[in-house]
């Protein structure tokens, strides 16, 4: 019995290790290749014989990658904060306040989730042009500041909290905003973390929208800049330089993943969604 159990275990672990290797191989190769001199990139070896940071130096000289990292972080953090703010206030109203048309508003919000981004792309762009927001940070943040998904998540979380908790805080003299952030927020931490992680990653990975509204290189986000660099011909077809840019693009998310691994997996599992 013990023996068969062990064999089953060995097979399971072997299969999982193989799968893990399959996934991690491109990453490791990517890092290796980014450090390889031009003539070694094609070798498909894990580690170059003569590692060099030449690729990174070349890339930094050609594009403002540092600035784009800052832009990406700024945009992702701003978007995430705004989504948490708007999501929880709207979610609270839909979950706990009584007003006419509450259900209808909720259904309309949920309905917007079914609209593909590509459909609203052009109207959104026209709005940005009319508001004179093209080529500003606002163009990257404002359209994503309210998220139907976040509203839905917060509404569900608030609905699960007892009404008496809200009543008690009101009697203690708490304002409605104080109630949301001081009483309710600490009790729905998993939801906040889930929404924050998914919003941050969604914002970080966005390429199409920045390509449309940002033309000033100084305002470009990292994925946008790297994409333009890689496919736009400015890398002079040098594979190593392109890969170096890709490494820098992947690195922040990978580091974040190492820190928040537990929450990442919970978020994906709890929503069944993956961007």
């Amino acid at each position, binding site marked *: 019995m013990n023996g068969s159990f062990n064999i089953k275990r060995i097979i399971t672990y072997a299969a999982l290790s193989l799968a893990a290797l399959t996934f991690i191989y491109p990453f490791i190769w990517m890092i290796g290749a980014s450090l390889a001199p031009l003539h070694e990139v094609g070798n498909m070896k894990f580690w170059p014989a003569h590692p060099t940071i030449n690729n990174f130096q070349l890339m930094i000289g050609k594009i403002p990658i540092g600035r784009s990292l800052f832009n990406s972080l700024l945009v992702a953090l701003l978007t995430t904060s705004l989504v948490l703010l708007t999501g929880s206030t709207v979610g609270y109203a839909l979950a706990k306040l*009584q007003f006419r048309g509450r259900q209808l508003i909720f259904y309309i919000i949920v309905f917007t989730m079914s609209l593909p981004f590509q459909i609203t792309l052009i109207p959104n762009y026209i709005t940005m042009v009319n508001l004179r927001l093209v080529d500003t940070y606002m163009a990257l943040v404002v359209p994503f500041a309210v998220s139907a998904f976040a509203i839905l998540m917060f509404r569900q979380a608030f609905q699960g909290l007892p009404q008496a908790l809200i*009543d008690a805080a*009101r*009697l203690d003299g*708490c304002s409605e905003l104080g109630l949301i952030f001081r009483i309710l927020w600490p*009790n729905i931490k998993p939801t906040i973390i889930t929404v924050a992680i998914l919003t941050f990653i969604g914002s970080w990975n966005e390429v199409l929208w920045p390509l449309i509204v940002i033309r000033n290189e100084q305002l470009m986000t990292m994925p946008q800049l790297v994409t333009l660099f890689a496919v736009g011909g400015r890398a002079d077809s040098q594979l190593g330089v392109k890969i170096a840019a890709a490494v820098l693009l992947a690195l922040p998310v990978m580091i974040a993943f190492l820190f928040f691994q537990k929450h990442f997996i919970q978020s994906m599992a709890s929503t069944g969604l993956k961007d």
Partner: protein
Amino acid sequence: MAEVILQNISKIYSDVDKHMGRHKAVDDISFTVYDKEFMVLVGPSGCGKSTLLRMIAGLEEISEGNLLIDGKRMNEMTPRQRDIAMVFQNYALYPHMTVYDNMAFGLKLQNFSKADIKSRVMETAQLLEIEDELYKKPKTLSGGQRQRVAIGRAIIRRPKVFLFDEPLSNLDAKLRSQMRIELQRLHREINATMIYVTHDQTEAMTLGHRIAVLNKGKLMQLDTPMNLYEHPNNKFVAGFIGSPSMNFLKGRIINETGLYFENESKQCRFSLGKDLEASLGSYVNTEVILGIRPENIFLKDDGSLSDCSLEVLAFENMGNEQLIYLSIGSQTIIVRRPQTHEIEIGDKVALSFSRKNMLFMVDSTGQVIDTTVLSNAGSGKL
């Protein structure tokens, strides 16, 4: 000083999310809760008592009528401006805060100094005997301790009025009777106006200076516990207050050389005596309900003339008393005896009803026919 006055208060629900159309959850209720009074609102579930309390608290909008606290109209005031505190059935403690922070939260919002908050928390914790739990989270506390913290959170702000929404119904029976006594002690010590909602008539009887009995959104009667017990206004109050509840016998008053009561199944028929004749004379041949409490029916073992003779359906020996269930027509009546006697199911027993403790109600309305005043006046003349 805090006097709470309710003037013609109603709660009307239109069909916002309710699918039940317009209905009145609270219907035109007026009464005054005096300063330092312990007022209990009691009634079956769905009678509107909690809604009424939430309207006083400011958690529900008042559809019609006025609410005055200390003479000031409060309808549009927020809960904070009304200066009231409330204790909830499920405690509603903030789960992420320690007991200390739970109690301190309201004071922090009022910008009390740290030292003041600390001294008040300590004082309150001492009063409620929860000093050892101050730095624990609510989920590690027992039900009784949680309720103490909830009460602590309410009294620490020293509000004008305390509201209690079924605070003991989540506790087990033993703890409940213990907390009842503590609440009485607390009321004596902090000497504040309290309004207490419960569906449990025992709690109402033991805690209230006065009790307001509600049914279907209407105020049925408001009086002291003993007056409610002895002089209910209507059939609902008569049946609701007291345990086991009052026996009701349908029947009619007939006139055959003096007034008689005869029940529906004609198993009971007895003379009402001189005192009752004066006040019941105008009800001859109308349908009435006779109400009589279980302790006011006596078993006659001596074979003398009885009011009726009924079959024993069941009995319960409680040690200090005996409850006997008797069948009359399609109804059951209960008799309570102070001591346990030998009895068998199926026995026929002779009963006599205490005349001075009988209530008569008009069958159609449930209104109690006033027999006390007239019979007192009558006996005065004799």
